[in-house]
């Protein structure tokens, strides 16, 4: 009946959880004390703690996560071409627009998303003026669908219309493909909801000149390995979400020789290279679909708690979990805390928007912020904050990245594979680096900063997960 006590007497090492008074007093007695800065798990909510307990120590879940992570890790995203959205994006049809974030109706769309929709309708010629375009959008003649439901991603408003050119990225390990539009640059651009004639003019040039020239260059190159560009860029001060300067440069190095060989008129080639060179964010529209291609490979693993999508439409924030199929778990998009461009302030900001948080989902962006210390000049904070943010993300992730590493952390792999259990348990939300859009259509970016998903997403996802698998 009486069990024999093992490991007696104890080793003299003590871990202290709770009052630091006891940690100090044990240290005073010469004990080897490990001190945990304890916080209530799951923000103290007992219902969630019960769900966590039910999922605790489950080897089948651990195994599912290992599989999901392995699929993510072994993915090889390669830029293989450019195509017309209507022709290449799965599930696309006429009179359909894709947008960032979880599903949303015209009525609930925020300013920048509405602006981008109006612009896209005019670009497609479904309406001649902004007023008409609004009527078309509101009249139910256009179908709205999230990019993420078509293996695509789009920054900010993320609007993709049928005739827009899109990058095609192929995961050479599993064969799945992902898609993203080409980056328009900064200032007045469709992704921030601008739809003035110059915006539409640029989009047309991108479709008519940029896309074909680049497409030919990509074809000649035989495909460009995005994973290695990202890995190198992390060692050059990028985190490939809010800072893409190094990655864009590396991309130019990789593509320029082939672009020159395309045989297009030199004036076009020159404009194409100048366009990419003049836009530090050009690579964002490649880092995003690369992340998407890797994560989509990890999606749909039964019993996996790994987050495969984090995305916002300017009104809602939504996540998807590998083991929970197509379900979105949503909550209100948050205000971004950060630095504003001169003349703008907090009142001008739209809530968090865009699919670009796919980078954080893949262990990049805010998760790799310690690799991109200069970014604090852009989003606010100190270098120590940048390191701290990355470091904290290890507490909510399944693993350390095998390919993407952070020099200042001793080349430690970036924190990768957000585990909904760990997020809920620790109460630590994923850290996202992001741009701030003006709340009115057409004004564009007004700043950049840091944001987290709303807690509800993870709470709902965990409860759903427990209901399904506990």
């Amino acid at each position, binding site marked *: 009946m009486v069990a024999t006590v093992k490991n007696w007497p104890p080793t003299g090492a003590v871990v202290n959880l709770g009052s630091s008074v006891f940690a100090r007093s044990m240290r005073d007695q010469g004990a080897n004390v490990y001190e945990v*800065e304890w916080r209530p798990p799951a923000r103290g909510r007992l219902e969630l703690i019960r769900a966590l307990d039910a999922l605790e120590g489950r080897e089948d879940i651990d195994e599912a996560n290992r599989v999901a992570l392995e699929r993510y890790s072994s993915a090889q995203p390669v830029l293989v071409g450019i195509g017309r959205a209507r022709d290449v994006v799965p599930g696309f049809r006429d009179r359909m627009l894709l947008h960032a974030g979880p599903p949303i109706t015209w009525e609930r769309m925020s300013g920048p998303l509405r602006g981008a929709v109006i612009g896209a309708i005019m670009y497609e010629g479904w309406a001649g003026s902004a007023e008409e375009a609004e009527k078309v959008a509101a009249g139910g003649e256009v179908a709205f669908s999230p990019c993420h439901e078509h293996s695509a991603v789009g920054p900010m408003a993320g609007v993709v219309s049928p005739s827009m050119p899109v990058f095609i990225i192929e995961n050479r390990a599993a064969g799945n493909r992902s898609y993203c539009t080409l980056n328009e640059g900064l200032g007045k651009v469709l992704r921030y909801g601008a739809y003035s004639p110059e915006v539409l003019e640029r989009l047309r040039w991108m479709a008519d000149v940029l896309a074909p020239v680049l497409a030919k260059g990509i074809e000649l190159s035989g495909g460009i390995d995005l994973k290695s560009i990202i890995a190198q860029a992390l060692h050059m001060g990028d985190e490939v979400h809010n800072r893409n300067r190094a990655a864009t440069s590396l991309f130019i190095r990789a593509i320029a020789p082939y672009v020159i060989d395309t045989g297009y008129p030199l004036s076009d080639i020159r404009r194409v290279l100048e366009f990419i060179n003049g836009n530090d964010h050009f690579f964002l529209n490649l880092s995003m679909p690369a992340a998407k291609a890797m994560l989509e490979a990890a999606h749909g693993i039964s019993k996996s708690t790994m987050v495969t999508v984090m995305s916002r439409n300017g009104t809602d924030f939504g996540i998807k979990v590998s083991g929970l199929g197509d379900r979105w778990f949503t909550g209100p998009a948050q205000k971004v805390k950060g630095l504003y461009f001169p003349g703008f302030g907090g009142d001008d900001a739209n809530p968090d928007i865009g699919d670009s948080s796919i980078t954080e989902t893949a262990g990049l962006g805010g998760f790799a912020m310690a690799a991109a210390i200069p970014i604090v000049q852009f989003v606010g904070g100190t270098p120590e904050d940048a390191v701290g943010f990355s470091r904290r993300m290890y507490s909510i992730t399944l693993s350390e990245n095998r390919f993407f590493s952070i020099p200042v952390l001793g080349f430690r792999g970036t924190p990768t594979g957000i585990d909904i259990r760990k997020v809920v348990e620790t109460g630590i939300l994923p850290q996202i680096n992001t741009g701030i859009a003006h709340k009115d259509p057409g004004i564009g970016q007004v700043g950049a900063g840091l944001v987290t998903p709303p807690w509800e997403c993870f709470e709902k996802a965990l409860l759903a997960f427990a209901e399904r698998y506990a």
Partner: protein
Amino acid sequence: MSHSMTRALDRGPAGGARRHLGAVKAGRRFCGLLSGSRRYRIHSVFARALNLCDEDGREFLTLLPLSRGCGATYATLALAPEESFLDFELVPGLEAEARDGTRVQLGLEVVVDFSSALTWESRLSTMAPGQLSEANLLVLRRALLETSTASPFRGAVDGSDSGLAALLDALRAAVLAADGTRLGAALASLVGFGPGLTPSGDDVVVGMSLARAVFGRARRAGGRRDGGGLWEAGVRGVLARTHALSAFFIEEALAGRSHEFVEDALGCLLADGPQETGLAAGRLIGVGATSGFDIGVGLYLAAEWQRRYAWCSSG
């Protein structure tokens, strides 16, 4: 990055402060702080005293160890003799955050718990001054003379510093002659005179003002409703010459309020026997380096002049 964000990250487990200090007694003026209706910041930190200051920089609250006495704007804490406010990483400018009406968080390290604190009651507020006992005055005078102190007013009490004695006498004469100009000039040389957060001259004025307020209360109860008389106007006219904290103590004295040991010394002088007066005088003189002594000088002179010239009831 917003301030609240970084701070939320830094905050310890469950908001756990390192020390949770029990307030033993608190004056009524702590209501504003505890209810959150008035915001205070740490003004100054000493080993055994901590001053809070409101946002206008005009109202002060002081935390002291239990043995150091209370008051309307004071609270006493149960501290061990060796404990020091300097150990708690408290720095001027930190906000004193009220929580659920009974607790105040000071920085990340300290919570002061007022939930079972006793309310400090002023002895003077209910006191009607009667005849001043000569024996009590003698006890106070002897206590002052027996003190060795660095205060410049030591010489004024025993007569060795005729300059300062003349200055103090000018106060007496000016009030009795209702000469506002002369009073103002004398006060101007007194207030702000001497070193420290509460200069010696200020402390003398505190003692005199408190005594006048208590006698003045009797006078007002007797029908005269002049509120601020010659002295009060004169003192207020020179307050800008000194530190905000010291000015606040003088204002309080004008309103008839002061630290427990000061009020007690005056209370004993007015209502108790020589033995109690001696004990109270000893406690008062022990306050600060010179403050207690200087306030005692003010009390003594005002009381002595009241007995001889009805000075407190004049002007």
